[in-house]
């Protein structure tokens, strides 16, 4: 009863805060550049926090705790990949991408790739590949629904309806300004929760600080030696050396995901990237601390049917009601902070990447700029609704592992996009448009083929195979073809000369 009261109050405040910030974001949003990348006006600490909050979704707090619960210490390979591969990938690509975009002025990943390779086929193809993220969104919605189900005793379907309606409304109003404002706040909440859960062993168990890890290991080993082993052959993702390697590869690729990519584009000054990245890394360690709840609960109660419920059960048992309610709000924040970023990506893909930059600018749809602005904004908002409906339907029945569902989405996007981006920014003299197109097709078809026709337990392995195939094909095709005009380095120089000649771009305006 007390928990329910706190939760309803907390949910009410959270909803109010989101709607207020959504409104403020809406007031600042005048055009598609505002909607997609807040017109490059945001500072490094806020963006670093937003990056971290977008990166770590409900999948971390719900799904990864579930994996830690079910699979034990071998889960820590995922932790390691998140503090090494992902930040290093961001360091590797962020500076170059941000600098190229100073002249290119792209507002999204498909737009950036389209500009870099001077290809509408790539722009549209990559924009369509963004729709793998439907699975990612679905994973967040189901995590949100489980909050209502487990903490408040609601029917799952009602929780799913409420979370879907809440996030949809919020995104339709505010776009990226709203996304980043709320992300920064949510990052602080997530960090606090992660650290509090990590140290909770001090009162949940009778262990001292010094012997805690030894005690934890002994108790887990007694239940099942696989829970403390370096590899767990009974897990779906940590069962072999190559499966572990795949995790590192995909976590490296993950930093180039479009909803994170546009945070890099949104930074006001490329010189601030260091502060932004440092902020994100510090927050990463804080967030990930929450996953130890999976180990703790496994010792206490190894009988859960749905491992994803571990974090809820743990906090309800061992924290005061107000803290358990706080956790519910934090998980909701984590789901929202990622989901709204992905919604913006998908809405931008349709309204800017496909509609404005391709259909209108190439003359397939005849429309003046003013009308195109208005129509593209309607497309953006309508796409949010359509995406919500499809994602809702995907998780009408809750999945066994939220984290697995999320990674289906991430893997598809990574297989399509990582090779053209990473190879392009580091070898701009070498890449060709044909190579990038070949990578896109190979990555998508390869990933789908592997997922459907090969019996591979790990979604990371499936994604890695798609990514490796795309990379090999791109390298081969680039080696065999000549670089086209306006691609890569030529593209940069062309864009620089155009931007020097022109006055500042007249951004399309979208009036209320």
């Amino acid at each position, binding site marked *: 009863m007390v928990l329910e009261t706190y939760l309803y109050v907390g949910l009410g405040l959270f909803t109010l805060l989101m709607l207020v910030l959504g409104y403020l974001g809406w007031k600042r949003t005048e055009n598609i550049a505002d909607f997609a990348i807040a017109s490059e*006006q945001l*500072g490094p600490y806020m963006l670093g926090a937003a990056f971290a909050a977008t990166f770590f979704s409900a999948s971390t707090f719900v799904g990864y705790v579930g994996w830690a619960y079910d699979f034990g210490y071998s889960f820590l390979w995922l932790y*390691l990949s998140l503090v*090494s591969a992902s930040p290093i990938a961001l360091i590797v690509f962020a500076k170059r991408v941000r600098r190229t975009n100073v002249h290119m002025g792209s507002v999204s990943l498909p737009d950036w790739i389209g500009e870099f390779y001077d290809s509408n086929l790539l722009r549209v193809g990559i924009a369509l590949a963004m729709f793998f993220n439907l699975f990612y969104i679905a994973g967040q919605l189901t995590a949100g629904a489980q909050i209502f189900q487990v903490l408040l005793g609601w029917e799952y379907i009602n929780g799913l309806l409420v979370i879907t309606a809440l996030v949809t409304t919020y995104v339709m109003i505010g776009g990226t300004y709203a996304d980043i404002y709320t992300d920064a706040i949510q990052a602080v909440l997530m960090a606090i929760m992660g650290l509090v859960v990590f140290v909770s062993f001090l009162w949940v168990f009778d262990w001292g600080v010094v012997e805690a890890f030894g005690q934890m290991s002994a108790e887990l080993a007694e239940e099942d030696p696989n829970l*403390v082993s370096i590899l767990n052959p009974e897990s779906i993702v940590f069962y072999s050396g190559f499966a572990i390697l795949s995790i590192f590869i995909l976590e490296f690729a993950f930093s180039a995901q479009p909803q994170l990519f546009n945070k890099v584009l949104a930074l006001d000054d490329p010189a601030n990237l260091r502060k932004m990245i440092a902020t994100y890394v510090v927050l990463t360690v804080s967030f990930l601390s929450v996953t130890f709840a999976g180990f703790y609960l496994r010792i206490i109660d190894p009988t859960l049917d749905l491992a994803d419920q571990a974090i809820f059960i743990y906090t309800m048992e061992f924290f005061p009601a107000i803290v358990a309610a706080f956790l519910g709000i934090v998980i909701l924040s984590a789901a929202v902070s990622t989901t709204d970023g992905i919604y913006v990506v998908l809405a931008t893909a349709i309204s800017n990447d496909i509609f404005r930059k391709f259909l209108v600018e190439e003359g397939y749809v005849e429309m003046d700029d003013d009308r195109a602005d208005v129509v593209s904004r309607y497309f953006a908002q309508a796409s949010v609704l359509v995406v919500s409906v499809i994602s809702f339907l995907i998780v009408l029945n809750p999945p066994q592992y939220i984290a697995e569902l999320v990674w289906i989405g991430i893997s598809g996007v990574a297989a399509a996009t990582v090779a053209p981006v990473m190879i392009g920014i580091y070898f701009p003299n070498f890449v060709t448009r044909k190579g990038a197109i070949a990578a896109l097709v190979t990555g998508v078809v390869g990933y789908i083929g592997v997922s459907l026709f090969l019996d591979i337990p790990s979604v990371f392995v499936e994604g890695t195979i798609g990514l490796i195939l795309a990379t090999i094909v791109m390298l081969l095709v680039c080696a065999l073809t000549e670089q086209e005009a306006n691609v890569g380095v030529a593209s940069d120089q062309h864009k620089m000369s155009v931007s020097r000649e022109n006055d500042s771009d007249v951004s399309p305006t979208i009036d209320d």
Partner: protein
Amino acid sequence: MATTMLVIWLVGTVLSLATIYALLRVWYAPEAEEEEPRRETIE
């Protein structure tokens, strides 16, 4: 040993953070170069 993976995790995390720190210091050191005029920053 039951704690081997924990040791790997701890050492790996420390090494990773140290590597990231070093990379940021080297690759992202402030440089004197021309950039676009800095726009109004919102923190």
